């Protein structure tokens, strides 16, 4: 369906579109609400990514290591599981995959030494019972029925070794009983020699060598290795690498660092259960050691692996290592894994670097984009081009996409476009993942290519992307990417309202209204031909727009600028039926103590337009009857006072007030607020109220009224004192402030001139401050 905006009659298509856009806007706004709530805030880089890590061969040997390193290999639990799983898998294979892993697991890891001894007895004596816990265990049945005595003897021995091999966790440090360990080694050696199965021999060798290692008998480790291993002729096993790990550890302790590093590199290359520990133990001190290590390697694949290990450091300059890997082993699958990992890093440096709304934060906290990132990108692109040209790599299409994508990240959109277009024609549709990756890359490029001013056509096009492009929803970076790009373009073309609405709700505007934004949004509301996007931006609910809210805000802004006639006119533009639903106020009465939640009941209430009319009427009355006008001016003072932050009618001039801001009074009167970086402005202006109270005081013939005006002026002084930049008093200190001379004249006057009035008594009773003074 072609997406054409309609003005008058809404069809089913329009409703669908509106619904989709509403979801879109809701989703745009939702993340702010969720992530910036009151819970613990996790500071993380904020950007976009359109490179799908699954584009590489996820079944590649090292894929989980490189692509899921953080969630898989950083967890000690996961490492333990990998080790256990691989061990069980091997046991299972040796028993022809006949038994459930759970059964094998129970026998290997959970059965006690006594269980195993009973099992051994049961295999020798048919009358002997199986231990209760092994009765339903088919693997245990097999060991008994087939009289696998070597395995059972071994398992008893292994379980006895276990207590010597526990690593101290917690507050107690296990004390190694070296003499007992030595005895166990000797016992193990005897059993090893008696055992016929070479696989069981291998397992004995592992236990024996491990014991020697934990006993810190490093020379013995090497001696035992040389003594036992030639006597084992088992098929390749993961235990070869587990044993190698102990051998390498002993070599490292004895100072043969290069040989140790070499063995660790082999373990890293071949044994996933020990890959992480081998990586952590792999250590090279200087260039000489590295050169010796490279010489030790028996093949180019082994040499390439050394560079892969170095590339795996979090902070490594991967491209330097990739160049070396390619030199030794261009068909290494690790090259592709590293390429994707590297592109994802470069995306952080370059994607939306001009318009990412978090760019300052990313720079401050994460130093992204990195210094010299351009140089690094150039080198990466150069390498990728070389790989594409020489065609030695495994997955050439991936390298071609990388070439285009890196060209795009470097800012050469035209060239990137050409590469993508060529690729589009050459990648076979059967390679779905690659086609999808190419589409996502093209979409990112297309969005980057928009320039301000953004036209109706552009907006409709973007609307169609949001609506129809499957990658928009599939790649989580797109909504934010498009949003930030649009905001940047709208800001550049002066469309402040649109820019604001893309990042904020209307409520955010109510906290700190901006006339340019309001005018911009009103202009859109009044537009006859709105684009798809504009429709959504000014849509309130169902069929109505935010126009009335904007008029209300505009009126309030006029009001606060003392343009009350203009305010009244603006309020009157809001339809009567809508105005009737707005709250009503009576700000004209008197409060000795400030109370924002104490509206006077049973009085005439006014809407905002009504208040303006009443203000104008009182002003007229006051001026027309100067001699008796004091009470009119006093009422005007009350009205302006009560419509500030301190009064019960604050909503007349402000649509958002936070009591919490009282604790953070500051000279700019701007407060941090959740939901808008503009902050919240509170109406604390005393000037209008002060003006009318002063007139009332001057004109008052009645001393009681004069006392009232004088007292209210003292309150105006106090409120001004709070926000004076030189004031050190903090409202949350809960102390009665000591007013400097500048702010205490009306208090003194009230005390000196009006202490004989009835109002004075009343005020002293009610007002703690006054009482204290």
């Amino acid at each position, binding site marked *: 369906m072609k997406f054409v905006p309609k003005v008058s009659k809404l069809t089913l298509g329009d409703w669908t579109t509106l619904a989709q856009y509403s979801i879109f806007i809701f989703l745009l706004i939702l993340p702010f609400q969720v992530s910036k709530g009151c819970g613990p805030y996790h500071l993380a880089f904020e950007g976009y990514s359109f490179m799908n890590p699954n584009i590489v061969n996820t079944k590649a040997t090292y894929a989980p290591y490189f692509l899921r390193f953080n969630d898989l290999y950083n967890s000690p639990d996961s490492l333990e599981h990998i080790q256990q799983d691989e061990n069980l898998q091997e046991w299972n294979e040796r028993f022809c995959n006949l038994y459930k892993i759970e059964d094998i697991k129970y026998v290997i890891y959970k059965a006690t030494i006594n269980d195993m001894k009973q099992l051994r007895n049961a295999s020798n004596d048919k009358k002997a019972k199986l231990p209760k816990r092994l009765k339903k265990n088919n693997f245990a049945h097999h060991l008994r029925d087939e009289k696998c005595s070597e395995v059972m003897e071994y398992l008893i021995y292994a379980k006895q070794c276990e207590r010597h091999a526990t690593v101290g966790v917690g507050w107690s440090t296990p004390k190694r009983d070296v003499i007992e360990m030595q005895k166990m080694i000797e016992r193990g050696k005897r059993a090893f020699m008696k055992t016929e199965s070479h696989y069981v021999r291998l397992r004995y060798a592992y236990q024996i060598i491990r014991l020697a290692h934990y006993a810190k008998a490093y020379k013995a480790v090497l001696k035992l290795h040389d003594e036992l291993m030639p006597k084992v002729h088992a098929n390749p096993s993961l235990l070869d690498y587990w044993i190698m790990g102990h051998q390498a550890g002993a070599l490292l302790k004895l100072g043969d660092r290069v040989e140790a590093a070499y063995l660790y590199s082999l373990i890293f290359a071949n044994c996933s259960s020990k890959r992480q520990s081998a990586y952590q133990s792999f250590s090279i001190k200087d260039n000489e050691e*590295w050169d010796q290590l490279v010489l030790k390697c028996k093949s180019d694949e082994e040499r390439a692996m050394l560079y892969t290990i170095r590339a795996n450091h979090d902070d490594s300059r991967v491209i330097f290592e990739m160049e070396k890997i390619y030199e030794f082993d261009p068909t290494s699958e690790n090259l592709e894994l590293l390429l994707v990992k590297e592109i994802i890093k470069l995306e952080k440096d370059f994607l939306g670097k001009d318009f990412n709304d978090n760019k300052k934060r990313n720079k401050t906290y994460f130093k992204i984009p990195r210094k010299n990132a351009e140089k690094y990108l150039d080198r990466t692109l150069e390498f990728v081009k070389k790989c594409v040209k020489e065609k030695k790599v495994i997955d050439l299409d991936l390298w071609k996409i990388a070439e285009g994508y890196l060209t795009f990240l470097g800012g050469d959109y035209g060239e990137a476009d050409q590469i993508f277009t060529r690729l589009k024609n050459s990648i076979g549709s059967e390679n779905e993942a690659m086609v999808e990756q190419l589409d996502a890359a093209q979409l990112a490029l297309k969005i980057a290519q928009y320039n301000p001013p953004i036209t109706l056509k552009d907006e409709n096009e973007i609307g169609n992307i949001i609506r129809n492009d499957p990658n928009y929803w599939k790649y989580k970076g797109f909504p934010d990417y498009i949003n930030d790009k649009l905001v940047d373009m709208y800001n550049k073309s002066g469309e402040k309202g649109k820019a604001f609405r893309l990042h904020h709700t209307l409520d955010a505007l109510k906290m700190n209204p901006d006339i340019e934004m309001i005018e911009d949004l009103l202009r859109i509301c009044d537009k006859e031909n709105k684009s798809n996007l504009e429709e959504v931006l000014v849509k309130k609910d169902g069929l109505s727009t935010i126009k009335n809210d904007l008029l209300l805000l505009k009126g309030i802004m006029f009001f606060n600028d003392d343009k009350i006639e203009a305010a009244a006119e603006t309020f009157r533009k809001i339809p009567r039926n809508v105005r009737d639903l707005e709250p009503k106020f009576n700000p004209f009465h008197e409060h000795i103590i400030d109370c924002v939640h104490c509206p006077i009941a049973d009085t005439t209430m006014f809407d905002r337009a009504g208040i303006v009319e009443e203000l104008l009427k009182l002003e007229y009355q006051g001026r027309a009857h100067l001699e008796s006008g004091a009470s009119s001016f006093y009422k005007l003072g009350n009205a302006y006072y009560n419509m500030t932050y301190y009064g019960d009618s604050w909503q007349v001039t402000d649509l958002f007030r936070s009591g919490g801001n009282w604790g953070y009074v500051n000279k700019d009167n701007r407060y941090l607020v959740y939901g808008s970086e503009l902050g919240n402005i509170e109406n604390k202006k005393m000037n209008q109220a002060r003006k009318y109270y002063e007139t009332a005081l001057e004109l008052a013939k009645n001393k009681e009224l004069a006392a009232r005006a004088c007292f209210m002026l003292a309150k105006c002084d106090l409120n001004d004192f709070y926000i004076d930049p030189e004031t050190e008093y903090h409202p949350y200190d809960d102390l009665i402030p000591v007013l400097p001379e500048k702010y205490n004249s009306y208090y003194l006057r009230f005390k000196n001139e009006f202490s004989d009035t009835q109002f004075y008594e009343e005020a002293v009773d009610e007002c703690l401050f006054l009482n204290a003074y």
Partner: protein
Amino acid sequence: MIIAEDNFITMILQKNNFLLNLAIKIALLFFFLASCTSTKKEITPAFYHWQTNFSLTQSEKDYLQNLSIKKLYVKFFDVDWNGKMQEPLPVAEVILDTTDLGSIEIIPTIFITNRSLKNYPLEKMELLGENILEKIFSIKKDVQEIQIDCDWSETTEEKYFRLLRFFKKEIQTKNIQLSATIRLHQIKYFKRTGVPPVDRGMLMFYNVDDVKDYKTKNSIIDLEVAKQYFFNFENYPLELDVALPIFSWGVLYRGGGMMKLINNLRAEDLRDDSFFLQTDETHFEVIKSTYLHGRYLYEGDIIRLEMVPLETLQRSAELLKSKIENPNVTISFYHLDTTTIKHYPYESLEEVIDAFY
């Protein structure tokens, strides 16, 4: 006779004058000596040992002897949060070999990470305290002082102080003193940060500036930066000892961000101009990728070399002398290491210690 009598009187008077003069002089001398001895501080030279293997080489032992070192603050273990066990646990426990140490006192020093306190509930501080003490005494039974090192924050202050109060209560019956490390800013803002409930504080006069910031001149010690924190010493309620740095490191920057620290790095390690290009007094650019102290550096990396020259140590001592008013002060150098002490002849450190008198 009268004359004779007069002479006698004069003689007596003269003699008395002489005696009076002598008495006054002696009194003045005593007063002077007394006043001198009463203001002279008692300084105890000490060292920190921060490695897991405490087995001193002969050269280290000789060095300590030459400096008349009386105390060694030995890091027994760190306490760090263990995510798997969901509790703070000891790590990097020291292997202690105290052979031939003579009368040097070993002071167990425990570093507690702030996250250990953050993650552990307040009511479990006593349990943590029990575990720490038990661990300390399992490593060494006879202890005269225990020092706790923790860069606590506002959020962990309550827990940390509760833990310290527990230690104090438990060890005071055994006549063991409790000390805690204090950072400079914790003195300036002590009303805000609080004062740890311990017997003495050890002012760590190093790590004064932001090591991560590329613009920092010398994060280990920069007296201009340190001076900004020279407030409130006179009001600080704890007696203070001082820890002075004698270590060096290289701060490695890659892509504009700080990557890591290269410990014990010195200018001579960066002399090979086929790998390093000195760009100013303290900065070096790696011009060819290379290993250095077990780290692989890439072409384009920048190293900021941070060292503590003897003059800076001397100047620090002079500055601190007037700030530390308690009569007994331990001056401890951080930290004992064969490579490091080569660069600080014991005679020079003696001069630094003397500057505190």
